[in-house]
């Protein structure tokens, strides 16, 4: 069973922005031009971080890193439908641009990749939960968060990201079911990038779409072309509106493709069919937005050049700042374990940090 974006089996994902950058006649993006450009800039940033992080990792300057490559429209199109001042993002680990959009910083992300726990400290006031490694474990958190905010009279919406792989975990089901019962203002944003490391989606599920699962929980599911910034964005806007209005959760299946390796330790040539990969390259989500913006004359080569230069600077500054902090300090092992640490732990701290001195 194939559920490629290009396949004809199963439901067809909603698409607005064609691979050549064209949109249906009369379609007007729901974002102001400045936001469109900001979104595009974030796409460029994301691609650049992917490259740079890989290099740094190869040089031993970063630990494991998972690139976003191929999923920029999916991550950024959805994030731009949220209001960072009141809405929340609950990430898995492959959603850096959505996190940046909320107010996370590159420097912290690099620290995170360097294995410093401070890197997973979301800045105060930034509506973000930390990066989650235990797949799907964040989904129940998102439901609780959405429910809790609503309980306290806030009009916030929570968008939780997770992969096709993570959707097989029991946590996905339990969370969706609870959200349906409580009509929690949460968006389950499932990035079906066709792979869970080496496991293709055909071995992940026998269904021809994940979006249909929503019915079984009593709320709507939407299937969109995840390489289409507008389709993703519109579907998320709708879901945000529903959630904000108290109409409960939405499940969005964003059908995209992981164009790079799973992470810096992975060798996808062992399992990815190169022809399939080529087919998806033609559906590149960043190129599509670029064509659209050029066509609409919102973007020029020159503006893009400027953007790239800025990004380069920002990134260099972030790398420098993160590296200047240096590796972790042994005290950090103990610093945030308990509000009120057991004396035994304090003794252990003294022993370990004492020795390290």
């Amino acid at each position, binding site marked *: 069973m194939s559920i490629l974006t290009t396949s004809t089996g199963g439901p067809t994902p909603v698409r607005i922005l064609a691979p050549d950058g064209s949109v249906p006649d009369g379609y007007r993006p729901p974002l102001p031009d400045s936001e469109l450009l900001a979104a595009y800039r974030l796409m460029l940033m994301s691609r650049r971080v992917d490259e740079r992080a890989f290099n740094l990792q190869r040089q031993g300057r970063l630990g494991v890193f998972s690139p976003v490559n191929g999923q920029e429209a999916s991550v950024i199109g959805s994030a731009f439908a949220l209001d960072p001042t009141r809405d929340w993002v609950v990430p898995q680990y492959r959603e850096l641009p959505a996190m940046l959009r909320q107010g996370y910083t590159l420097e912290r992300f690099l620290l995170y990749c360097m294995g410093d726990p401070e890197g997973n400290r979301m800045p105060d006031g930034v509506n973000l939960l930390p990066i989650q490694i235990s797949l799907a474990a964040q989904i129940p*958190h998102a439901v609780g968060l959405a429910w809790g905010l609503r309980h306290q009279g806030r009009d916030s919406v929570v968008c939780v990201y997770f992969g096709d792989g993570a959707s097989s975990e029991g946590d996905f089901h339990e969370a969706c079911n609870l959200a349906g019962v409580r009509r929690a203002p949460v968006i389950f944003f499932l990035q079906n990038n066709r792979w869970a490391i080496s496991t293709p989606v055909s071995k992940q599920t026998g269904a021809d779409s994940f979006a249909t699962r929503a019915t079984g929980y009593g709320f709507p599911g939407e299937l969109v072309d995840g390489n289409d910034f507008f389709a993703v964005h519109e579907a998320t806007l709708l879901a945000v509106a529903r959630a904000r209005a108290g109409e409960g959760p939405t499940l969005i299946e964003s059908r995209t493709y992981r164009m790079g390796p799973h992470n810096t330790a992975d060798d996808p040539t062992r399992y990815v069919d190169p022809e399939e990969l080529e087919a998806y390259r033609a559906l590149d989500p960043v190129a599509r937005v670029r064509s659209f913006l050029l066509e609409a004359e919102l973007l020029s080569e020159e503006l893009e050049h400027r953007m790239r230069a800025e990004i380069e600077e920002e990134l260099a500054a972030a790398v420098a700042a993160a590296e200047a902090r240096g590796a972790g300090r042994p005290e950090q092992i103990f*610093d945030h374990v308990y509000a009120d640490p057991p*004396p035994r*732990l304090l003794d252990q701290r003294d022993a370990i940090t004492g020795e390290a001195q």
Partner: protein
Amino acid sequence: MATLNMVQAIRATLEREMERDERIILLGQDIGRNGGMFRATDGLQERFGEARVVDMPLAEGVIVGSAVGLACSGLRPIPELQFLGFGSQAFHQIEGQVARMRFRSQSRYPMPIVIRAPFGGNVRTPELHSDAHEAKYANSPGLKVVTPASAHDAKGLLTEAIRGEDPVLFCEPLRGYRLIKDAVPDEDYTLPFGRLRIARPGSDVTLVAWSAAVVVAEQAAELAEQEGISCQVVDLRTLVPLDVEGLAKAVSATGRAVVVHEAPLTAGFGAEVVATIVEHAFSALSAPVLRVTAPDAPYPFSSLERAYLPSAERSLGAIRRVMGAA
């Protein structure tokens, strides 16, 4: 000062704390209209409404997992596991999430969550309901593990747990819910974690226990008394934090110790007690520290539980052995 049984003390504490702090919200299976399987939440939904006393779907993972999110939103959730044995369904959320979210978020998201869970045997429950899993949670840093043995302590420790900022697994002895009755002051009070209680003074052997096993230790002490052996009974009250100093002191005073617990022997928390005593009171020991526990077999079906669980008689055997009298 009223005489309450344990479940009454717990219920009263929940009510008092919910009055005091409206951020508290209770989650669990059958806790609302039904008032909990053992009536620990009886009447609380009527009193505080469905928004604060929430009957949850039958899924321990999301009962605990949503509590993490509720805590991130600023609330103070008190999820109930209907039985500690079904905490295994939520184990990844408890050890991997609740216990670590403070560290993972570097204190951006503290986890003031109290997970209440009845456990322990001799009440003829079906399989898996009576298991004493406390050691598994004690080996999950970031979590505190609290195990009251009296109604008085249940109130003081639960109040402390609820008002604290750290996540707590609050283990309630099923057998004690109605059987254990004692004087509970009406006014608020907290008991600090990590301070054991001398449940009975004695000079020859120190018996160390927690939760329902404290009663077994006390019975064993009675039996030993009749043989002229004076047993001190120590109730640990909390396993994490462990009162290392108090334990060393209590055992040093007698030079002999026996640990009694309901979990299977191997890698049960009794091992930690012995290892702690050995590290901190070795020179005072005049006999090996022994453990009286369930065997290394699964909690059996109900007709077998009496033989499975540590008894006063088996404890007496160990007491005699450490006295060199058997």
